[in-house]
């Protein structure tokens, strides 16, 4: 695939109470943003099992976003703190697998921040476009 034609495939896990509502707001307010993010609604950013993130990369995602409520605002009190700790540790581990830190992003987007969601989406898409495709090829029996 030539760099020109590369459209990043991004997967986003958005919490129901803040970030998903924020994304919805961006939509109803007719803000335009990069269409690359495939959104998966989860109840809380703390519900995102690291296995989901690995699965997304293994199945062809070029980048994964987790987005939740701002610190202190999680509907379940502590879910986003859990997400934060897992994100930092998983990022470090992903680098050992050859997956760059930039491909795995954590953001806080409130229900009122449609504009922030738009910005995050656009930035992430451009960042991964520059980085190029991940083309995960791990472990296929290709000897």
């Amino acid at each position, binding site marked *: 695939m030539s760099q020109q034609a590369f459209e990043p495939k991004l997967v986003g896990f958005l919490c129901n109470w803040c970030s998903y509502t924020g994304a919805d707001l961006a939509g109803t307010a007719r803000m335009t943003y990069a269409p690359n993010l495939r959104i998966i609604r989860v109840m809380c950013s703390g519900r995102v099992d690291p296995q989901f993130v690995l699965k997304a990369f293994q199945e062809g995602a070029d980048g994964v976003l987790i987005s939740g409520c701002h610190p202190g605002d999680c509907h379940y009190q502590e879910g986003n703190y*859990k997400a934060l700790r897992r994100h930092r540790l998983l990022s470090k581990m992903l680098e050992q697998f050859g997956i760059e830190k930039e491909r795995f992003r954590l953001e806080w987007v409130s229900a009122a921040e449609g504009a922030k969601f738009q910005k995050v989406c656009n930035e992430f898409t451009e960042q991964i476009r520059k980085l190029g495709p991940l083309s995960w090829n791990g472990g296929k029996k290709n000897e």
Partner: protein
Amino acid sequence: MSDQKPKVAFYWCASCGGCEEAVIDLAEDILKVVEAVDIVFWPVALDFKKSDVEAMEDGSIAVSFINGAVRLSEQEEMVKLLRRKSQLVVAFGSCAHLGGIPGLANFWDKESIFNRAYHTTPSTDNPEGVVPQEKCTIDGKELYLPSFFNTVYALDQVIDVDYYLPGCAPPRDLIMNAVQAILEGNLPPKGSVLSPNKALCEDCDRNDTKPEKLAIKDIKRPWEVILDPEVCFLAQGVICLGPATRTGCGQRCISANMPCRGCFGPTDQVIDMGAKFLAAFASILDADDESEVEKIVETIVDPAGTFYRFSLPTSILRRRKMEEKR
């Protein structure tokens, strides 16, 4: 014919020899096994050849116990042959079950491993830069070596496996239970791991000392502290894979005052053991603020190697990303 003893084979692939030792360590129990079965192939102990196996009828071996991961073409060929000849195949030990310690080589590939082993280790003495070739000619004769894969595989990534005996190495009681179940035809559903399906913590003597709400800030490696022989390792700030590891080993490491490294692999509910442990472990880190979290994470040396010590080839990602060949 019907009073013939069931035929059994043992084979080893990429392994350390510890699983063979585990069979020998059955001590007098091995005599019971030998009495009940006919061992038709066991390269480490008996002088049968590959051609002897080839000459057997397909499906004529009752069970083959295969240990070790698959990393060479020769191993692939042998396990496919044994699969054809056997009614049951048991993946014996962590390496056959999960990829095991040899599976950690999946953080590298053939080129980087050869470069290290044959050129750059301090102990390498190889002025002519000789590297093993799959084919070479010496005195007009052609010699062959198996090919070395970029990726190490667990047994079930190469052939169909009926049962798994976990552990590095599998403990004696689990081996004997498995042998007995096979002899009696009293087997659980195909694909079962022959050890109870719950986490090691549930059986651990130290579980009572684990606080309801663990919170750790200071992570230490076992050699950095004098370990209390009675207190849960996690409560001491030492990484213990007990919460993500299947029970059944009899707490071997714990009783030796070493944390669990996860050789039994995960329980049935878990796909990726390392990710599962990471999720649980990150949750108990005692920090809510970004820079504090980062500070703690910095002190966790080699998370991938620690969380996937025995299970890298069977993890979701299976290996480090292969560099594109130009």
